[in-house]
């Protein structure tokens, strides 16, 4: 039997359900197709964790911005043009030699999208959500992050009104680096608090 070309194989049930919702909501004028595309594009390609890295690198190089950021992160981040879509507040928690911060949302997966884009799969998973609170040091070790036992570990539970961003410690030896050069050192994971910001193997390579 040859392949049947007079029909198109329907997609999965999930896809059909989304198509049903989308087409009805557009018809009823409740959503605009261009808005939908713009939202996807923004979160998928434009935000990523780059906004967050910008915020962190600026805080490392600009003491006044850092004070403002720790004082009122929502305001300080908005001054760079990053505004929350959900009307949530942002709080920045600073890692020091004595304190390490870790962010979780135990209830669902609230996440500071404005600065970090969309959350990774593991952040949304039940094991991370429960273990980050119960055994945070074990979770950190699985990410290859070992903290000195004297370092106090604080776990911040996000809500729909309050999101957290970790301000990681600036890696040693980068004190005179420019903001632009520092940005790539700030990984998404370091701003969730599961890793430290560190020099990668190619950080000292000349940029092409």
């Amino acid at each position, binding site marked *: 039997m040859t392949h049947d070309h007079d*029909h198109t194989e329907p997609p999965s049930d999930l896809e*059909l359900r989304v198509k049903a919702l989308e087409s009805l*909501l557009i018809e009823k004028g409740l959503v605009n197709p261009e808005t939908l595309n713009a939202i996807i594009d923004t979160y998928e390609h434009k935000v990523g964790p780059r906004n967050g890295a910008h915020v962190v690198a600026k805080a490392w190089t600009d003491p006044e911005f850092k004070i403002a950021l720790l004082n009122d992160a929502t305001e300080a981040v908005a001054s760079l043009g990053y505004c929350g879509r959900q009307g949530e507040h942002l709080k920045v928690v600073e890692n020091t030699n004595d304190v390490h911060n870790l962010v979780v949302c135990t209830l669902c997966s*609230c996440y500071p999208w404005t600065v970090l884009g969309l959350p*990774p799969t593991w952040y949304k998973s039940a094991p991370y959500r429960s273990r980050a609170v119960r055994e945070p040091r074990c979770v950190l070790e699985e990410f290859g992050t070992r903290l000195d036992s004297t370092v106090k570990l604080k776990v911040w539970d996000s809500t729909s009104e309050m999101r957290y961003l970790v301000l990681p410690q600036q890696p040693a030896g980068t004190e005179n680096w420019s903001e632009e050069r520092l940005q790539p050192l700030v990984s998404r994971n370091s701003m969730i608090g599961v890793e430290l910001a560190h020099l990668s193997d190619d950080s000292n390579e000349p940029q092409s």
Partner: protein
Amino acid sequence: MPKNKQRINAPHPFQPRDDEGPIFKEPWEAQAFSLVIALHEKGIFSWQEWADVLSEEIRLAQSHGDDDLGNTYYQHWLKALEKITITKNLSAKDELIERKRKWHSAYINTPHGKPIELSAADSKP
């Protein structure tokens, strides 16, 4: 550090391999995501309302045996979106089911390679 690279990705076996992570696994996840943001921005529900519906959906899924490992997240998201669409009277359950059926027929009635349009749902080729 390179020694740790394997473990960095290790909290759950299906965790994305690259450090910055894939964002949406499939296009429908992105569409479901954007619908919620768009409805919220239009003021149809507050973010708190949405978070409540979504977390209730996740709790329900867990109680029905979903391991809730993050890979089914957008399925819960979609279910919650259907619920809030109905409770806010944006559409009715029957209407959603009927529309889904129509899309299904539209695929069946459209020759391979042609764009799928809803109007094809009730026409026989």
